[in-house]
């Protein structure tokens, strides 16, 4: 992400104002992989005053997907009658018995899709195969996944299945705050998740935990302004959920997208890498659609799997450790040969540190 010609002056002004308002040590957490990448690309960490630390939370869907879920997808992919559809980022995430990419190299029919629109088309085009869509994503993606489920039903496709692995952001923030291990003074809240869910689902952060949050856009100036808005709240002794990314985020979110999500899915407890099981943080198909649930249709038990020895992805996702603290970082775990998902995903914290260089704060 490059700075536009007119931006450096505005950025300089924002950075100055941020430095002026910081009163003491402060930790702000971003909960979105796209923010993580944008912060690193634009060099924002290096612009911050030494008292202000930006930390990354559980904001990358690929990274928070536990190994046990990867294993289920790999197991399904290896069945001869199955075509497994996945978003590209998940291909190289190591499971305990290999990755989807390895399964494909060994002959499994694993295909990368860009949109749930493609998932329905594949199922329709190959009626003799069982087509399973490995559905990973946050609230931004779940409405489109819900569309695929409903469309498969409308077209009466009997060979379309979902391996539901979506996660919800607000319950993860609640779990993080309730655990009380991560010292966070405010949240840079995700822009595109919020396009769908709006402002209300985050209000508990201010009301119950007394912390500010700002729904922030992805341009470098957006992020600087979001940080400034958090600091102003701190300075004024306020804790509220505000929207910086007003050009895309409406107070109520996107009611049509939320409505379809609600029609097709119901909240359910779900496992997160590093955070364990979090109440109502996942989505399962509602009764009318549950015959498309691959876990039931293929009878796939969940097996708890430990993270690779030494891998600190779990702690990094909670903001408890930084990538350079991990004994594997850059020494055995690199983007070319990743061990943990935070190094696999292009939006993972470790991948961002590795690519752009970590700045110690």
């Amino acid at each position, binding site marked *: 992400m490059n700075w536009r010609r007119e931006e450096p*002056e505005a950025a300089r002004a924002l950075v100055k*104002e941020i430095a002026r308002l910081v009163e003491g040590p402060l930790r702000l957490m971003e909960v979105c992989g796209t923010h993580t990448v944008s912060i690193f690309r634009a060099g924002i960490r290096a612009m911050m005053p030494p008292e202000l630390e930006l930390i990354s939370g559980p904001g990358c869907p690929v990274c928070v997907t536990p190994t046990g879920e990867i294993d289920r997808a790999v197991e399904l992919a290896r069945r001869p009658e199955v075509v497994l559809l996945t*978003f590209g980022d998940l291909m190289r995430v190591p499971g305990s018995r290999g990755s989807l990419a390895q399964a494909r190299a060994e002959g499994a029919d694993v295909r990368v899709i860009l949109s749930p629109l493609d998932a329905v088309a594949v199922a329709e085009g190959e009626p003799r195969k069982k087509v399973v869509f490995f559905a990973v*994503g946050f609230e931004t993606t779940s409405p489109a996944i819900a*569309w695929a489920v409903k469309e498969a039903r409308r077209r009466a496709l009997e060979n379309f299945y979902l391996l539901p692995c979506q996660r919800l952001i607000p319950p993860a923030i609640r779990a993080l705050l309730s655990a009380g291990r991560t010292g966070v003074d405010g949240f840079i809240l995700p822009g*595109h998740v919020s396009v769908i869910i709006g402002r209300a689902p985050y209000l508990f952060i201010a009301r119950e935990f007394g912390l500010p949050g700002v729904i922030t856009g992805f341009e470098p*100036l957006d992020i600087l302004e979001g940080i400034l808005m958090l600091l102003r709240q701190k300075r004024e002794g306020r804790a509220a959920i505000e929207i910086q990314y007003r050009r895309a985020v409406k107070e109520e979110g996107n009611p049509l997208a939320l409505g379809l999500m609600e029609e097709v899915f119901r909240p359910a407890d779900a496992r997160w890498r590093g955070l364990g099981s979090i109440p109502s943080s996942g989505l399962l198909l509602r009764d009318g659609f549950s015959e498309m649930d691959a876990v039931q249709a293929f009878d796939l038990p969940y097996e708890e799997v430990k993270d690779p020895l030494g891998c600190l992805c779990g702690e990094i996702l909670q903001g408890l450790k930084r990538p350079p603290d991990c004994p594997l970082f850059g020494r055995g775990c690199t983007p070319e040969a990743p061990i943990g998902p935070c190094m696999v995903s292009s939006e993972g914290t470790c991948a961002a540190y590795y690519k752009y260089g970590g700045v110690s704060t």
Partner: protein
Amino acid sequence: MCLGIPGKVVSKGGDFAEVDFGGVKRQVSLLFCPEAEVGDYVLVHVGFAIQRLEEEDALQTLKLLQELGEQYLELEEGGA
């Protein structure tokens, strides 16, 4: 993974639209954004428009930031 890419609606038919992303055109579902008309900018995620973008809002944010920039530049010049 929650990347949203802005594009311009060039034609519309049913639930779908043709959206121009800086020269590359793609079919996009307007199911969640049926109000988008030809000429509007939409934010697109995995083949679905998830919000109509108000171009004016975007420009206003930028203007506000530029003003803040000028204010600081004046202060700097004054203090030098």
